């Protein structure tokens, strides 16, 4: 009867008392520089310790520069934040992957690649895209700074149980259509609050067929549908990914873990509060046209006309979005010209994403009117990509090849759009000003961003002539 989510939830109840939220144990707490300083200050003020520094791991990602790492951080407030995390980790005995360490990277990229993220775990981080880790069959969700402090002090969180939602993705994704497109299609269907209060379990042939990289992309975007978390039951793909990873169980412990992980799936007769079905074989590459990830259409279609909106609220939102985005109703998506391209972020900066983009780029030059960045998700991704020569493919085509971090996904460092610039971005949010005040963001897959950088406008990557 229980769903995968029920099993994870029940396994982590420390205490349950009528009329109170359950007290849930947290197996892994990931920490970064932006949402933690006030939490550590709170601990210090109350004279509290970090209960389980051994279950806490920190890195710097949000505001670090992606240019020359041998130089000091020029932005003094950013430098202060990085230094504060360094001293907090040292004071409280927390493992810290500093700016120049081999392990540094976007917290949601390094957790999995180090094998810290494992099936069956509860994982939190002061970052909404913590949902990424659900790809391994863990219950992973973003929290605010007060909750970061709560977890540091107690390794627990009081939580009211969310509802369960299943999204069944049948069929297989066509060539050129990726996990990113599947995520955008789902958000376009249910809206940015379509899964509020729910934990999504993604199931079906299309999900089984995804690599871990694709599964992470899909779970990553769960928060953009408003979900508390997204998750996928672990299978052989998951186990193969984790085998031999630095912090993954080894030897006899590996066999024991496998036996336990194999039970982590929803029962056949599990009951979900809601179910949504989507035929993945019918999907196309998607492009957002507005200022919310739910404002999204297939590459072969047109910018919607606000007069067609279903409700007055939607109509007003569409009018406002079109004005901000400087787009006309009914114009072809493929006629939208771009100034910038960004390949990066916790959504799409893993090795497989860079390989997919490089395959499109190989043998081409970017459009002279376009400035394009590739920002690997971690130092490990960067090294692996360089070993394969991907950096040369990008550089020869005119892309800038950078160091690891969140970069232009949220523009906390120097990587931002100028007012009015239009960007094809592999990130997760196209909110007004997200990538820089007045900047216009179109969310796409890595292949679509690479193709747009070369063509100078959006193109259907399914028609691409690979060289």
């Amino acid at each position: 009867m229980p769903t995968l989510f029920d099993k994870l939830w029940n396994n982590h109840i420390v205490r349950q008392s009528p009329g109170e939220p359950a007290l849930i144990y947290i197996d892994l707490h990931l920490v970064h520089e932006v949402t933690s300083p006030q939490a550590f200050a709170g601990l210090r003020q109350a004279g509290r310790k970090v209960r389980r520094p051994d279950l806490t791991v920190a890195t710097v990602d949000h505001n670090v520069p992606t240019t020359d790492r041998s130089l000091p951080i020029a932005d003094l407030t950013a430098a202060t934040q990085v230094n504060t995390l360094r001293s907090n980790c040292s004071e409280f005995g927390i493992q810290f992957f500093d700016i120049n360490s081999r392990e540094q990277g976007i917290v949601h990229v390094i957790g999995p690649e180090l094998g810290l993220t494992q099936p069956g775990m509860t994982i939190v981080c002061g970052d909404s895209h913590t949902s990424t880790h659900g790809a391994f069959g863990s219950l992973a969700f973003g929290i605010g700074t007060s909750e970061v402090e709560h977890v540091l002090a107690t390794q627990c969180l009081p939580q009211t149980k969310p509802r369960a939602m299943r999204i069944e993705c049948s069929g297989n994704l066509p060539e050129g259509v990726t996990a990113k497109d599947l995520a955008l299609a789902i958000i376009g269907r249910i809206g940015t609050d379509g899964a509020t209060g729910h934990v999504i379990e993604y199931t079906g042939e299309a999900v089984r067929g995804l690599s871990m990289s694709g599964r992470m992309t899909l779970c990553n975007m769960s928060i953009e549908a408003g979900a508390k978390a997204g998750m996928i039951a672990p299978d052989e793909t998951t186990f193969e990914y984790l085998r031999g990873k630095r912090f993954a169980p080894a030897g006899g412990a590996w066999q024991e873990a496998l036996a336990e992980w194999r039970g982590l799936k929803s029962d056949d007769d599990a009951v979900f509060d809601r179910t949504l079905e989507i035929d993945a074989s019918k999907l196309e590459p998607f492009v957002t046209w507005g200022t919310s990830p739910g404002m999204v259409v297939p590459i072969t279609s047109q910018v919607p006309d606000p007069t067609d909106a279903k409700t007055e609220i939607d109509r007003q939102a569409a009018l406002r979005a079109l004005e901000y985005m400087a787009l006309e109703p009914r114009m072809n998506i493929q006629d939208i010209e771009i100034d910038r391209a960004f390949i990066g972020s916790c959504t799409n900066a893993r090795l497989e994403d860079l390989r997919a983009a490089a395959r499109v780029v190989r043998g081409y030059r970017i459009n002279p009117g376009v400035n394009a960045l590739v920002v690997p998700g971690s130092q490990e991704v960067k090294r692996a990509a360089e070993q394969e020569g991907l950096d040369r493919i990008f550089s020869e085509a005119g892309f800038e090849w950078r160091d690891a971090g969140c970069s232009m996904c949220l523009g906390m460092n120097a990587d931002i759009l100028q007012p009015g610039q239009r960007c094809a971005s592999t990130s997760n949010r196209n909110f007004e000003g997200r990538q820089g005040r007045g900047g216009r963001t179109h969310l796409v897959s890595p292949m679509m961003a690479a193709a747009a950088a070369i063509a100078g406008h959006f193109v259907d990557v399914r028609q691409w002539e690979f060289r």
Partner: protein
Amino acid sequence: MQPFRKHTGLVAPLDRANVDTDQIIPKQFLKSIERTGFGEFLFFDWRYRPEGGPEPSFILNQPRYQGASILVTGKNFGCGSSREHAPWALREFGFRVIIAPSFADIFANNCFKNGMLPIVVSDDQVARITGRAQYAEGYTLTVDLETKTITDDAGLSIEFSVSDFQRYCLLEGLDEIGLTLRHESDISAYEARK
């Protein structure tokens, strides 16, 4: 945390849906290591013109809404990033209550941790409150957490729901970490079982 029991205040209507936390407090202000200093940057891109100076058409810049402490707004308020800087900015600006048809989960949670009350009411009720706040200058509401009601001076009375636990924590101004630490023996027992 400052307790929240009953609050009467001026209502400002922000008639937009899906207001995200990037709008509430843009990223360039997240580099601070303090919990304070965010109020002046609340809704920065909407409140201030790109060339500097306030944008007079933005609702919170209008003289009649100065001193507002109750915000009424559209569905899915606070979507996007988990940044608690968003409720910190709203609180420091003066807001203690936000009324909307729905909230993003993390944002609503963050409000409760900061002595702020996010209240969910129906679309119709939001429309009614928004209409009154736009029409009647100086329009105030009284929010009573003990009785779980919103009232005005013109006969409006709306009951709202809030979880018993969150209500209790707000009414008493409780330190939730302190509450959890009372269950130390349960936590240790769980750790021993694992």
